[in-house]
Protein backbone atom coordinates (compact mmCIF):
# COMPACT_ATOMS: atom_id res chain seq x y z
CA UNK A 1 0.00 0.00 0.00
CA UNK A 2 1.30 3.43 -0.93
CA UNK A 3 1.07 5.70 2.07
CA UNK A 4 -0.89 8.93 1.88
CA UNK A 5 1.27 11.95 2.70
CA UNK A 6 1.97 15.51 1.64
CA UNK A 7 4.64 14.13 -0.69
CA UNK A 8 2.14 11.79 -2.32
CA UNK A 9 -0.21 14.71 -2.91
CA UNK A 10 2.63 16.77 -4.43
CA UNK A 11 3.77 13.85 -6.60
CA UNK A 12 0.26 13.20 -7.89
CA UNK A 13 -0.38 16.88 -8.49
CA UNK A 14 2.48 16.82 -10.98
CA UNK A 15 1.07 13.90 -12.96
CA UNK A 16 -2.65 14.55 -13.17
CA UNK A 17 -3.43 12.26 -10.21
CA UNK A 18 -2.83 9.21 -12.35
CA UNK A 19 -0.91 7.27 -9.70
CA UNK A 20 -3.44 6.81 -6.89
CA UNK A 21 -4.01 3.15 -6.10
CA UNK A 22 -7.36 1.61 -5.29
CA UNK A 23 -7.85 1.97 -1.55
CA UNK A 24 -8.83 -1.69 -1.11
CA UNK A 25 -9.03 -4.84 -3.20
CA UNK A 26 -12.23 -6.69 -4.17
CA UNK A 27 -11.08 -10.32 -4.24
CA UNK A 28 -12.91 -13.58 -4.89
CA UNK A 29 -13.78 -15.46 -1.70
CA UNK A 30 -11.33 -18.16 -0.56
CA UNK A 31 -12.44 -21.63 0.57
CA UNK A 32 -11.63 -21.03 4.21
CA UNK A 33 -10.70 -18.26 6.62
CA UNK A 34 -9.56 -18.40 10.24
CA UNK A 35 -12.11 -15.75 11.13
CA UNK A 36 -15.10 -14.46 9.19
CA UNK A 37 -16.54 -11.13 10.26
CA UNK A 38 -20.08 -10.57 9.02
CA UNK A 39 -20.78 -6.89 8.48
CA UNK A 40 -18.39 -4.36 6.97
CA UNK A 41 -19.58 -1.39 8.94
CA UNK A 42 -17.34 0.46 11.36
CA UNK A 43 -17.56 -2.16 14.11
CA UNK A 44 -16.95 -5.12 11.80
CA UNK A 45 -14.02 -3.48 10.04
CA UNK A 46 -12.51 -2.34 13.33
CA UNK A 47 -12.85 -5.87 14.70
CA UNK A 48 -10.97 -7.24 11.69
CA UNK A 49 -8.36 -4.49 11.88
CA UNK A 50 -7.47 -5.13 15.53
CA UNK A 51 -7.54 -8.90 14.96
CA UNK A 52 -4.73 -8.36 12.48
CA UNK A 53 -2.89 -5.54 14.18
CA UNK A 54 -2.98 -6.67 17.80
CA UNK A 55 -3.46 -10.43 17.57
CA UNK A 56 -1.75 -11.26 14.28
CA UNK A 57 -4.79 -13.04 12.81
CA UNK A 58 -4.79 -11.96 9.18
CA UNK A 59 -6.53 -14.79 7.36
CA UNK A 60 -9.80 -12.91 7.76
CA UNK A 61 -12.76 -12.15 5.52
CA UNK A 62 -15.21 -9.33 6.12
CA UNK A 63 -18.52 -10.16 4.44
CA UNK A 64 -20.96 -7.38 3.61
CA UNK A 65 -24.33 -7.72 1.91
CA UNK A 66 -24.28 -4.15 0.61
CA UNK A 67 -21.35 -1.79 0.34
CA UNK A 68 -18.94 -1.12 3.17
CA UNK A 69 -19.98 1.56 5.59
CA UNK A 70 -23.40 1.75 3.93
CA UNK A 71 -25.47 0.91 6.98
CA UNK A 72 -25.54 2.80 10.25
CA UNK A 73 -21.87 3.79 9.89
CA UNK A 74 -22.85 6.07 7.03
CA UNK A 75 -26.13 7.16 8.57
CA UNK A 76 -25.33 8.46 12.04
CA UNK A 77 -24.74 11.98 13.30
CA UNK A 78 -21.00 11.28 13.94
CA UNK A 79 -21.01 12.26 17.61
CA UNK A 80 -18.13 11.03 19.76
CA UNK A 81 -18.31 11.17 23.55
CA UNK A 82 -17.63 8.95 26.55
CA UNK A 83 -19.52 10.68 29.36
CA UNK A 84 -21.45 7.60 30.50
CA UNK A 85 -22.54 6.89 34.02
CA UNK A 86 -21.77 3.21 34.49
CA UNK A 87 -18.15 2.06 34.85
CA UNK A 88 -18.10 -0.60 32.10
CA UNK A 89 -19.64 1.89 29.62
CA UNK A 90 -17.20 4.63 30.51
CA UNK A 91 -14.30 2.19 30.09
CA UNK A 92 -15.18 1.00 26.60
CA UNK A 93 -16.41 4.37 25.28
CA UNK A 94 -13.37 6.16 26.69
CA UNK A 95 -11.11 3.54 25.09
CA UNK A 96 -12.87 4.29 21.81
CA UNK A 97 -12.56 8.05 22.22
CA UNK A 98 -8.86 7.81 23.03
CA UNK A 99 -8.27 5.56 20.00
CA UNK A 100 -10.10 8.11 17.82
CA UNK A 101 -7.46 10.69 18.84
CA UNK A 102 -4.71 8.80 17.05
CA UNK A 103 -6.80 7.00 14.46
CA UNK A 104 -5.85 9.14 11.45
CA UNK A 105 -2.14 8.47 12.09
CA UNK A 106 -2.77 4.84 12.97
CA UNK A 107 -4.69 4.14 9.75
CA UNK A 108 -2.81 6.63 7.56
CA UNK A 109 -6.25 7.92 6.61
CA UNK A 110 -7.72 11.24 7.64
CA UNK A 111 -10.84 10.46 9.66
CA UNK A 112 -11.25 14.17 10.42
CA UNK A 113 -11.59 13.63 14.15
CA UNK A 114 -12.64 16.96 15.59
CA UNK A 115 -12.64 17.11 19.41
CA UNK A 116 -14.65 20.29 19.38
CA UNK A 117 -16.38 19.76 22.69
CA UNK A 118 -19.75 18.33 23.54
CA UNK A 119 -22.50 19.75 25.72
CA UNK A 120 -25.41 17.89 27.23
CA UNK A 121 -27.95 20.47 28.28
CA UNK A 122 -29.80 20.20 31.54
CA UNK A 123 -33.27 21.63 31.05
CA UNK A 124 -34.94 20.31 34.17
CA UNK A 125 -34.00 19.91 37.83
CA UNK A 126 -33.95 16.18 37.34
CA UNK A 127 -31.50 16.38 34.45
CA UNK A 128 -29.33 18.84 36.36
CA UNK A 129 -28.94 16.44 39.26
CA UNK A 130 -28.43 13.54 36.88
CA UNK A 131 -25.63 15.22 34.96
CA UNK A 132 -23.91 16.48 38.10
CA UNK A 133 -23.90 12.89 39.26
CA UNK A 134 -22.47 11.81 35.91
CA UNK A 135 -19.70 14.40 36.26
CA UNK A 136 -18.76 12.94 39.67
CA UNK A 137 -18.84 9.43 38.23
CA UNK A 138 -16.73 10.49 35.23
CA UNK A 139 -14.14 12.06 37.51
CA UNK A 140 -13.75 8.71 39.26
CA UNK A 141 -13.53 6.93 35.89
CA UNK A 142 -10.80 9.25 34.55
CA UNK A 143 -13.18 10.62 31.93
CA UNK A 144 -12.71 14.38 31.77
CA UNK A 145 -16.06 16.12 32.05
CA UNK A 146 -17.27 19.07 34.03
CA UNK A 147 -20.44 20.86 34.97
CA UNK A 148 -20.88 24.37 33.59
CA UNK A 149 -23.36 27.08 34.53
CA UNK A 150 -25.83 28.70 32.08
CA UNK A 151 -23.60 31.73 31.55
CA UNK A 152 -20.77 29.59 30.24
CA UNK A 153 -23.19 27.57 28.12
CA UNK A 154 -24.35 30.78 26.46
CA UNK A 155 -20.74 31.81 25.88
CA UNK A 156 -19.94 28.51 24.18
CA UNK A 157 -23.15 28.44 22.13
CA UNK A 158 -24.33 32.00 21.47
CA UNK A 159 -27.24 30.84 19.30
CA UNK A 160 -28.73 28.86 22.17
CA UNK A 161 -31.88 30.13 23.82
CA UNK A 162 -31.11 29.57 27.49
CA UNK A 163 -34.01 31.60 28.89
CA UNK A 164 -36.84 29.26 28.03
CA UNK A 165 -39.68 29.83 28.71
CA UNK A 166 -40.61 26.17 28.49
CA UNK A 167 -37.17 24.59 28.79
CA UNK A 168 -34.69 27.03 30.34
CA UNK A 169 -31.09 25.82 30.29
CA UNK A 170 -29.99 25.24 33.88
CA UNK A 171 -26.44 24.26 32.98
CA UNK A 172 -24.68 21.57 31.02
CA UNK A 173 -22.36 18.63 31.21
CA UNK A 174 -19.32 19.51 29.11
CA UNK A 175 -16.89 16.99 27.67
CA UNK A 176 -14.23 19.09 26.02
CA UNK A 177 -12.58 16.09 24.38
CA UNK A 178 -15.81 14.93 22.77
CA UNK A 179 -16.69 15.91 19.24
CA UNK A 180 -17.22 14.43 15.81
CA UNK A 181 -15.39 12.54 13.04
CA UNK A 182 -16.03 11.86 9.38
CA UNK A 183 -18.09 8.67 9.52
CA UNK A 184 -17.38 7.36 6.00
CA UNK A 185 -13.68 7.95 6.46
CA UNK A 186 -13.67 5.76 9.57
CA UNK A 187 -15.06 2.84 7.55
CA UNK A 188 -12.86 3.55 4.55
CA UNK A 189 -9.71 3.96 6.66
CA UNK A 190 -10.25 0.65 8.45
CA UNK A 191 -11.15 -1.06 5.16
CA UNK A 192 -7.97 0.16 3.48
CA UNK A 193 -5.84 -0.96 6.42
CA UNK A 194 -7.55 -4.39 6.52
CA UNK A 195 -7.08 -4.88 2.79
CA UNK A 196 -3.44 -3.90 3.18
CA UNK A 197 -2.98 -6.66 5.77
CA UNK A 198 -4.23 -9.18 3.20
CA UNK A 199 -7.76 -9.50 4.54
CA UNK A 200 -10.57 -10.05 2.03
CA UNK A 201 -13.38 -7.50 1.82
CA UNK A 202 -16.33 -9.26 0.20
CA UNK A 203 -18.94 -6.64 -0.64
CA UNK A 204 -22.32 -7.44 -2.22
CA UNK A 205 -22.10 -10.84 -0.55
CA UNK A 206 -25.05 -11.72 1.64
CA UNK A 207 -24.87 -14.41 4.30
CA UNK A 208 -27.83 -16.75 3.77
CA UNK A 209 -27.05 -19.40 6.36
CA UNK A 210 -24.73 -20.36 9.19
CA UNK A 211 -23.38 -23.92 9.17
CA UNK A 212 -22.67 -25.68 12.45
CA UNK A 213 -21.54 -29.19 13.36
CA UNK A 214 -21.75 -30.59 16.87
CA UNK A 215 -22.54 -27.22 18.42
CA UNK A 216 -19.59 -25.56 16.71
CA UNK A 217 -19.51 -23.20 13.77
CA UNK A 218 -17.93 -24.52 10.57
CA UNK A 219 -18.82 -21.90 7.99
CA UNK A 220 -21.38 -19.71 6.30
CA UNK A 221 -23.44 -19.95 3.14
CA UNK A 222 -23.43 -16.80 1.07
CA UNK A 223 -24.77 -15.56 -2.23
CA UNK A 224 -21.26 -16.23 -3.55
CA UNK A 225 -21.06 -19.81 -2.28
CA UNK A 226 -20.12 -21.56 0.94
CA UNK A 227 -17.13 -20.36 2.91
CA UNK A 228 -15.58 -22.27 5.83
CA UNK A 229 -14.29 -20.58 8.94
CA UNK A 230 -12.71 -21.29 12.29
CA UNK A 231 -14.53 -18.52 14.11
CA UNK A 232 -17.43 -16.29 13.17
CA UNK A 233 -18.01 -12.75 14.40
CA UNK A 234 -21.50 -11.38 13.80
CA UNK A 235 -21.33 -7.58 13.73
CA UNK A 236 -24.45 -6.57 11.84
CA UNK A 237 -26.30 -4.07 14.05
CA UNK A 238 -29.96 -3.98 12.99
CA UNK A 239 -29.86 -7.44 11.41
CA UNK A 240 -28.33 -9.20 14.43
CA UNK A 241 -31.56 -11.08 15.19
CA UNK A 242 -31.69 -12.37 11.60
CA UNK A 243 -28.13 -13.71 11.74
CA UNK A 244 -28.67 -15.14 15.22
CA UNK A 245 -31.78 -16.88 13.87
CA UNK A 246 -29.62 -18.53 11.17
CA UNK A 247 -27.25 -19.74 13.88
CA UNK A 248 -30.15 -21.00 15.99
CA UNK A 249 -30.30 -18.68 18.99
CA UNK A 250 -32.26 -15.63 20.01
CA UNK A 251 -30.96 -12.23 21.11
CA UNK A 252 -32.45 -9.70 23.54
CA UNK A 253 -32.64 -7.20 20.70
CA UNK A 254 -35.31 -5.26 18.87
CA UNK A 255 -34.62 -3.45 15.61
CA UNK A 256 -35.99 0.05 15.23
CA UNK A 257 -35.56 3.04 12.97
CA UNK A 258 -33.51 6.04 13.97
CA UNK A 259 -33.50 9.06 11.70
CA UNK A 260 -31.21 11.98 11.06
CA UNK A 261 -31.33 14.97 8.77
CA UNK A 262 -29.28 17.96 7.69
CA UNK A 263 -30.08 21.55 6.89
CA UNK A 264 -28.88 23.55 3.92
CA UNK A 265 -25.25 24.65 4.42
CA UNK A 266 -24.74 27.90 6.29
CA UNK A 267 -21.79 29.89 7.62
CA UNK A 268 -20.09 28.69 10.84
CA UNK A 269 -22.76 28.98 13.52
CA UNK A 270 -22.06 26.43 16.21
CA UNK A 271 -18.63 24.97 16.95
CA UNK A 272 -19.56 22.39 19.57
CA UNK A 273 -21.95 19.46 19.64
CA UNK A 274 -25.12 20.18 21.60
CA UNK A 275 -27.42 17.48 22.93
CA UNK A 276 -30.76 18.42 24.43
CA UNK A 277 -32.02 15.17 25.87
CA UNK A 278 -35.14 16.53 27.54
CA UNK A 279 -36.62 17.69 24.24
CA UNK A 280 -34.72 14.87 22.56
CA UNK A 281 -32.70 16.46 19.82
CA UNK A 282 -29.04 16.97 19.10
CA UNK A 283 -27.21 19.18 16.67
CA UNK A 284 -23.76 19.97 15.36
CA UNK A 285 -22.42 21.67 12.26
CA UNK A 286 -20.54 19.69 9.65
CA UNK A 287 -17.46 20.97 7.86
CA UNK A 288 -19.67 21.59 4.82
CA UNK A 289 -21.80 23.93 6.92
CA UNK A 290 -24.87 21.74 7.20
CA UNK A 291 -26.49 21.47 10.59
CA UNK A 292 -26.60 17.76 11.42
CA UNK A 293 -29.67 16.89 13.47
CA UNK A 294 -30.81 13.71 15.16
CA UNK A 295 -33.63 12.72 17.46
CA UNK A 296 -35.11 9.63 19.05
CA UNK A 297 -35.99 6.23 17.69
CA UNK A 298 -39.40 5.08 16.60
CA UNK A 299 -41.15 2.85 19.08
CA UNK A 300 -41.93 -0.14 16.88
CA UNK A 301 -39.96 -2.93 15.19
CA UNK A 302 -38.72 -1.88 11.80
CA UNK A 303 -36.28 -3.13 9.14
CA UNK A 304 -37.11 -0.61 6.43
CA UNK A 305 -34.43 2.08 6.95
CA UNK A 306 -37.08 4.74 7.04
CA UNK A 307 -38.88 6.14 10.03
CA UNK A 308 -41.98 7.99 11.05
CA UNK A 309 -42.44 11.52 9.87
CA UNK A 310 -43.74 12.83 13.17
CA UNK A 311 -40.36 12.20 14.84
CA UNK A 312 -38.69 14.52 12.36
CA UNK A 313 -41.34 17.12 13.05
CA UNK A 314 -41.11 16.79 16.85
CA UNK A 315 -37.33 16.95 16.98
CA UNK A 316 -37.11 19.90 14.60
CA UNK A 317 -39.77 21.71 16.61
CA UNK A 318 -37.84 21.10 19.83
CA UNK A 319 -34.58 22.31 18.30
CA UNK A 320 -36.21 25.45 16.92
CA UNK A 321 -37.26 26.29 20.45
CA UNK A 322 -33.73 25.60 21.65
CA UNK A 323 -32.03 27.40 18.74
CA UNK A 324 -34.53 30.03 17.47
CA UNK A 325 -32.05 31.16 14.80
CA UNK A 326 -32.54 27.97 12.78
CA UNK A 327 -36.28 28.44 12.33
CA UNK A 328 -36.01 29.69 8.72
CA UNK A 329 -33.56 27.03 7.56
CA UNK A 330 -34.56 24.54 4.92
CA UNK A 331 -33.86 20.91 5.63
CA UNK A 332 -31.90 19.30 2.84
CA UNK A 333 -31.81 15.54 3.32
CA UNK A 334 -33.34 13.05 5.72
CA UNK A 335 -32.61 9.36 6.15
CA UNK A 336 -33.03 6.45 8.53
CA UNK A 337 -31.02 3.52 9.83
CA UNK A 338 -32.00 0.37 11.67
CA UNK A 339 -30.63 0.31 15.19
CA UNK A 340 -30.43 -2.72 17.48
CA UNK A 341 -31.89 -1.88 20.87
CA UNK A 342 -31.24 -3.92 24.01
CA UNK A 343 -33.28 -3.76 27.19
CA UNK A 344 -30.65 -1.84 29.16
CA UNK A 345 -29.48 0.26 26.18
CA UNK A 346 -25.98 -1.17 26.49
CA UNK A 347 -24.23 -3.24 23.83
CA UNK A 348 -23.62 -6.97 23.73
CA UNK A 349 -20.09 -8.24 23.09
CA UNK A 350 -20.36 -11.89 23.83
CA UNK A 351 -19.79 -15.54 23.20
CA UNK A 352 -22.95 -17.31 22.10
CA UNK A 353 -24.57 -20.72 22.64
CA UNK A 354 -22.76 -21.86 19.47
CA UNK A 355 -19.06 -22.54 19.97
CA UNK A 356 -16.94 -20.23 17.82
CA UNK A 357 -19.65 -17.66 17.16
CA UNK A 358 -19.29 -14.24 18.75
CA UNK A 359 -21.71 -11.33 18.58
CA UNK A 360 -21.07 -7.62 18.76
CA UNK A 361 -24.38 -5.81 18.64
CA UNK A 362 -26.88 -3.82 20.64
CA UNK A 363 -25.09 -0.51 20.23
CA UNK A 364 -28.50 0.94 19.52
CA UNK A 365 -28.50 4.65 18.92
CA UNK A 366 -24.90 5.27 19.95
CA UNK A 367 -22.55 2.97 18.08
CA UNK A 368 -20.44 5.32 15.97
CA UNK A 369 -18.59 6.82 18.92
CA UNK A 370 -17.61 3.35 20.09
CA UNK A 371 -16.22 1.93 16.84
CA UNK A 372 -12.49 1.75 17.71
CA UNK A 373 -13.07 0.56 21.29
CA UNK A 374 -15.70 -1.94 20.21
CA UNK A 375 -13.41 -3.35 17.52
CA UNK A 376 -10.50 -3.50 19.95
CA UNK A 377 -12.50 -5.38 22.58
CA UNK A 378 -14.23 -7.64 20.06
CA UNK A 379 -10.93 -8.63 18.44
CA UNK A 380 -9.57 -9.59 21.86
CA UNK A 381 -12.72 -11.56 22.64
CA UNK A 382 -12.56 -13.45 19.33
CA UNK A 383 -8.82 -14.08 19.51
CA UNK A 384 -8.50 -15.02 23.19
CA UNK A 385 -12.03 -15.83 24.28
CA UNK A 386 -11.91 -13.09 26.90
CA UNK A 387 -11.61 -9.31 26.92
CA UNK A 388 -11.62 -7.21 30.10
CA UNK A 389 -13.34 -4.37 28.24
CA UNK A 390 -16.10 -6.67 27.01
CA UNK A 391 -16.43 -8.90 30.08
CA UNK A 392 -19.46 -7.16 31.53
CA UNK A 393 -21.21 -6.78 28.17
CA UNK A 394 -21.84 -10.53 27.81
CA UNK A 395 -25.26 -11.98 27.09
CA UNK A 396 -25.22 -13.62 30.52
CA UNK A 397 -26.08 -10.28 32.09
CA UNK A 398 -29.72 -10.59 31.06
CA UNK A 399 -30.11 -13.92 32.82
CA UNK A 400 -28.22 -12.75 35.90
CA UNK A 401 -29.79 -9.30 36.13
CA UNK A 402 -26.35 -7.63 35.88
CA UNK A 403 -27.59 -4.83 33.66
CA UNK A 404 -25.44 -1.92 32.61
CA UNK A 405 -28.34 0.41 32.74
CA UNK A 406 -27.64 3.43 30.60
CA UNK A 407 -31.30 3.96 29.77
CA UNK A 408 -31.97 5.01 33.33
CA UNK A 409 -28.70 6.93 33.41
CA UNK A 410 -30.18 9.54 31.08
CA UNK A 411 -28.54 7.98 28.04
CA UNK A 412 -31.70 8.32 25.97
CA UNK A 413 -30.12 10.18 23.10
CA UNK A 414 -26.66 9.04 22.11
Amino acid at each position, binding site marked *: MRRYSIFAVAREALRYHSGWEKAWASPEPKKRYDVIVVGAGGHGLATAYYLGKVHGIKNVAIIEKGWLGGGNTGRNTTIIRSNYLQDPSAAIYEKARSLYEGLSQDLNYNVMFSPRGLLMLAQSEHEMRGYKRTVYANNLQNVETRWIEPKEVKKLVPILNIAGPRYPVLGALLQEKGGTARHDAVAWGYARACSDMGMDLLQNTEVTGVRTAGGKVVGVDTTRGSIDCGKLAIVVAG*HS*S*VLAGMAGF*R*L*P*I*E*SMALQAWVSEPIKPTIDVVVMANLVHGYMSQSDKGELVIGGGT*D*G*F*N*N*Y*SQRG*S*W*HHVEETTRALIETFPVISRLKMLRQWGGIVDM*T*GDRSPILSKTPVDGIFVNCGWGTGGFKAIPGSGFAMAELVAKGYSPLAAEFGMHR*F*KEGQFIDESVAAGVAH
Partner: protein
Amino acid sequence: MLTLTCPCCGVTVEETELAPGGEAHLKRFGPGSTDAEFETYMFARKNPKGVHFERWRHAYGCGKWFLAARCTVSWEVFGTYPAQTTEPPAELIAKIKEKRPGWEGWK
Protein backbone atom coordinates in the same frame (compact mmCIF):
# COMPACT_ATOMS: atom_id res chain seq x y z
CA MET B 1 -47.27 7.21 8.07
CA LEU B 2 -48.37 3.95 9.63
CA THR B 3 -52.13 3.65 10.09
CA LEU B 4 -53.90 0.94 12.07
CA THR B 5 -57.55 0.12 12.67
CA CYS B 6 -58.42 -0.13 16.34
CA PRO B 7 -60.56 -3.28 16.74
CA CYS B 8 -62.07 -1.93 19.96
CA CYS B 9 -63.55 1.34 18.70
CA GLY B 10 -63.34 0.59 14.98
CA VAL B 11 -61.63 3.74 13.78
CA THR B 12 -58.59 3.81 11.51
CA VAL B 13 -55.99 6.08 13.04
CA GLU B 14 -52.51 7.37 12.38
CA GLU B 15 -49.53 6.25 14.38
CA THR B 16 -49.38 9.49 16.38
CA GLU B 17 -52.62 8.44 18.08
CA LEU B 18 -51.15 5.09 19.10
CA ALA B 19 -48.50 3.84 21.51
CA PRO B 20 -46.44 0.81 20.46
CA GLY B 21 -46.09 -1.97 23.03
CA GLY B 22 -43.66 -4.49 21.55
CA GLU B 23 -43.98 -8.17 20.71
CA ALA B 24 -47.38 -9.81 21.27
CA HIS B 25 -48.29 -13.25 22.63
CA LEU B 26 -45.41 -13.44 25.10
CA LYS B 27 -46.02 -16.08 27.71
CA ARG B 28 -45.64 -14.47 31.07
CA PHE B 29 -43.36 -16.02 33.70
CA GLY B 30 -43.11 -14.86 37.26
CA PRO B 31 -42.17 -16.24 40.68
CA GLY B 32 -41.43 -19.96 40.58
CA SER B 33 -40.21 -19.97 36.99
CA THR B 34 -36.67 -20.91 36.01
CA ASP B 35 -34.06 -18.25 35.23
CA ALA B 36 -34.11 -19.22 31.57
CA GLU B 37 -37.90 -18.90 31.33
CA PHE B 38 -37.88 -15.54 33.03
CA GLU B 39 -35.02 -14.24 30.86
CA THR B 40 -36.84 -15.37 27.71
CA TYR B 41 -40.04 -13.68 28.80
CA MET B 42 -38.28 -10.47 29.78
CA PHE B 43 -35.72 -10.04 27.02
CA ALA B 44 -35.50 -12.60 24.20
CA ARG B 45 -37.44 -11.33 21.21
CA LYS B 46 -38.21 -12.79 17.79
CA ASN B 47 -37.56 -9.43 16.15
CA PRO B 48 -38.42 -10.89 12.72
CA LYS B 49 -37.59 -9.30 9.41
CA GLY B 50 -41.07 -9.81 8.00
CA VAL B 51 -44.36 -10.68 9.69
CA HIS B 52 -44.48 -9.40 13.25
CA PHE B 53 -47.24 -9.73 15.83
CA GLU B 54 -47.23 -6.74 18.10
CA ARG B 55 -49.12 -4.86 20.78
CA TRP B 56 -50.47 -1.37 20.33
CA ARG B 57 -52.52 0.89 22.56
CA HIS B 58 -55.03 3.37 21.20
CA ALA B 59 -53.54 5.90 23.59
CA TYR B 60 -55.24 9.07 22.32
CA GLY B 61 -58.53 7.34 21.55
CA CYS B 62 -60.36 4.62 23.41
CA GLY B 63 -57.26 3.80 25.47
CA LYS B 64 -57.53 0.05 24.88
CA TRP B 65 -54.75 -2.38 24.03
CA PHE B 66 -55.04 -4.35 20.79
CA LEU B 67 -52.83 -6.57 18.65
CA ALA B 68 -51.67 -6.21 15.06
CA ALA B 69 -49.92 -8.32 12.44
CA ARG B 70 -47.59 -6.15 10.41
CA CYS B 71 -44.61 -6.58 8.11
CA THR B 72 -41.51 -4.91 9.59
CA VAL B 73 -40.01 -4.33 6.14
CA SER B 74 -42.90 -2.99 4.05
CA TRP B 75 -45.10 -1.85 6.98
CA GLU B 76 -48.00 -3.73 5.37
CA VAL B 77 -50.67 -4.34 8.01
CA PHE B 78 -52.31 -7.77 7.67
CA GLY B 79 -54.91 -7.14 10.32
CA THR B 80 -55.66 -6.09 13.89
CA TYR B 81 -57.55 -7.97 16.59
CA PRO B 82 -58.52 -7.56 20.25
CA ALA B 83 -55.89 -8.35 22.88
CA GLN B 84 -57.98 -10.85 24.84
CA THR B 85 -56.43 -13.89 23.15
CA THR B 86 -53.31 -16.02 23.48
CA GLU B 87 -52.85 -16.61 19.76
CA PRO B 88 -53.69 -14.86 16.49
CA PRO B 89 -57.08 -15.63 14.88
CA ALA B 90 -57.02 -18.52 12.37
CA GLU B 91 -58.41 -16.43 9.51
CA LEU B 92 -55.64 -13.85 9.97
CA ILE B 93 -52.98 -16.57 9.84
CA ALA B 94 -54.59 -17.96 6.66
CA LYS B 95 -54.59 -14.49 5.12
CA ILE B 96 -50.90 -13.95 5.90
CA LYS B 97 -49.99 -17.40 4.54
CA GLU B 98 -51.78 -16.56 1.31
CA LYS B 99 -49.93 -13.26 0.98
CA ARG B 100 -46.55 -14.60 2.15
CA PRO B 101 -46.23 -18.23 0.99
CA GLY B 102 -42.72 -18.58 2.45
CA TRP B 103 -43.71 -17.40 5.93
CA GLU B 104 -42.62 -19.82 8.64
CA GLY B 105 -45.52 -19.15 11.01
CA TRP B 106 -46.06 -17.03 14.10
CA LYS B 107 -44.34 -19.28 16.68
